């Protein structure tokens, strides 16, 4: 399968700081990849290199078959990039801004108007909004303007750096629908902090930490690899000390605990099913026990993310 994006041992140094180290991954055409990582993990640096506006210190990045280092102009023709915080001028109208950007992107003559109208319709910007100054628009509409800008030349590849940052839930949903609608027609790399967003929208998830790839796979593969059968959720009227006493005897480890209206809710890491049986046996022996929940936990992307980014640098996996 031809890859729309491929990086091999991509590294970037800012003086003595290693922002990226030997990052290798490939994205097949038409796939949506969520790019996850804690702050300063190197997500934005990677996207800037892929967008052709920054050069890598070492390694190679190929976008739509063009080298990001040597054919950056061609790369820019094939990539729609929406930078972090979506910088837009405040004092021009949406229409004027998109027309200006269309000309920067080498569209000429009647194609400028045609493409501006097309992306405005696609991003729900048609009508009065087009004639409003960007400065008076809500955050959600401004994000849609940023995506419309990225789509102007109908590039095969879209790089969206935290497109839903700062949006309210309604705006997030609307933007998600927009990006979902582009699935298949564009190869999309979506950098985000919102894990549920990655789970819902992405075909694959790439997690990086400290500039290195930690893991890459589909959400199902990640859950299978990191979570199944390893956690137990318990909610009862027992105290924390009583739970700890049980765990001392059975060997499980308390991951987290939280007081809820129904009692103490605990998350317990267990190594196999025999521990679950042991714990259950000890619980039922307790007099006056009110057990409101006892279940294997479904691993969330949050827990996977935390586990993955807590791993040592050497542990890198492709699933």
């Amino acid at each position, binding site marked *: 399968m031809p890859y729309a994006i491929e990086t091999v041992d991509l590294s970037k140094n800012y003086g003595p700081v290693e922002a990226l180290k030997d990052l290798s991954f490939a994205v097949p055409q038409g796939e949506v990849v969520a790019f996850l990582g804690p702050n300063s993990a190197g997500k934005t640096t990677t996207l800037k290199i892929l967008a052709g506006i920054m050069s890598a210190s070492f390694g190679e990045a190929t976008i739509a078959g063009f080298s990001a280092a040597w054919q950056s102009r061609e790369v*820019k023709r094939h990539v729609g990039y929406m930078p972090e915080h979506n910088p837009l001028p405040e004092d021009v109208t949406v229409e004027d801004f998109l027309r200006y950007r269309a000309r920067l992107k080498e569209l000429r003559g009647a194609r400028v108007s045609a493409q501006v109208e097309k992306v405005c319709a696609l991003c729900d910007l048609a009508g009065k909004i087009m004639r409003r100054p960007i400065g008076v628009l809500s955050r959600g509409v401004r994000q849609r303007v940023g995506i419309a800008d990225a789509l102007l030349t109908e590039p095969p590849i879209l790089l969206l750096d935290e497109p839903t940052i700062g949006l309210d839930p309604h705006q997030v949903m609307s933007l998600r629908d927009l990006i979902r609608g582009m699935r298949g027609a564009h190869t999309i790399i979506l950098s985000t902090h919102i894990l549920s967003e990655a789970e819902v929208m992405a075909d694959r998830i790439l997690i990086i930490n400290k500039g290195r790839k930690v893991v890459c796979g589909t959400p199902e593969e990640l859950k299978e690899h990191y979570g199944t059968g390893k956690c137990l959720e318990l909610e009862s009227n027992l105290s924390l000390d009583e739970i700890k006493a049980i765990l001392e005897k059975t060997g499980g480890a308390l991951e987290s605990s939280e007081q809820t209206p129904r009692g103490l809710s605990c998350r317990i890491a267990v190594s196999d099913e025999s521990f679950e049986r042991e714990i259950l046996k000890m619980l039922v022996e307790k007099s006056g026990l009110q057990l409101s929940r006892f279940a294997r936990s479904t691993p969330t992307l949050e827990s996977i993310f935390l586990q993955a980014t807590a791993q040592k640098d050497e542990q890198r996996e492709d699933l």
Partner: protein
Amino acid sequence: MLFALFYLVSGAFYFSVFRLASMEPQRYSPLQLFWEMQWLLNLIWVPLLTMRLIAPDRNRGLLESALATPTTPAAIVMGKYLSVLYLYILGWLSVGVYMLISRLTALNAADAAIAFSPSAVWGGAIFCLSSGVFFLSLGLWCSSLTRNTIIAGGLTVCLMLLYMMLPTMFEQAAVHHVGALNPFNHLENLSDYVSGEISISMVVAHFIMSAILLFTTMLSIEHKAE
């Protein structure tokens, strides 16, 4: 707003010079005296035009966004430079309007012919254009060095003043071995141009220095994107 400010200041300046010069006999025509003071107006006009060219774009991330398009840094720099040069010329054209007004309202045709002799009109105008080509590229370069508009403007004023005053300051301090700076003595060259002694070498020097600064600005933009 910028234009209104410049038109107001340049108009007040122009007519004040004419009024003061007409009070007693002068060695030079009022127009020559006005052109001799053009550096003062440029100290306001050039930073006002150039300080917002790149600094706020860098601050808001718009430069990065522009660099993500197939447009080259050279095209971005030249686009900004040529547009600001156009505005600079448009600003100074106001002086042409003032000249026309004062010429048409002059009481004495013979005096008017002397005051608006071709050398008085064109010498100052050519120097204004030639030095503008250089100063605007200096302002553009200063704007590429910082994210702060005010710092960009301040830096432009300081460097313009330094360029204009340095040869004179050396001369005052009797530092003779810096005679190499003499051809770049801005104020002396201005006086020569205004009195009709137009030297092509100064125009060429302005264009070469401008080209170097524009190239440096382009490199600066490329570097800042990293």
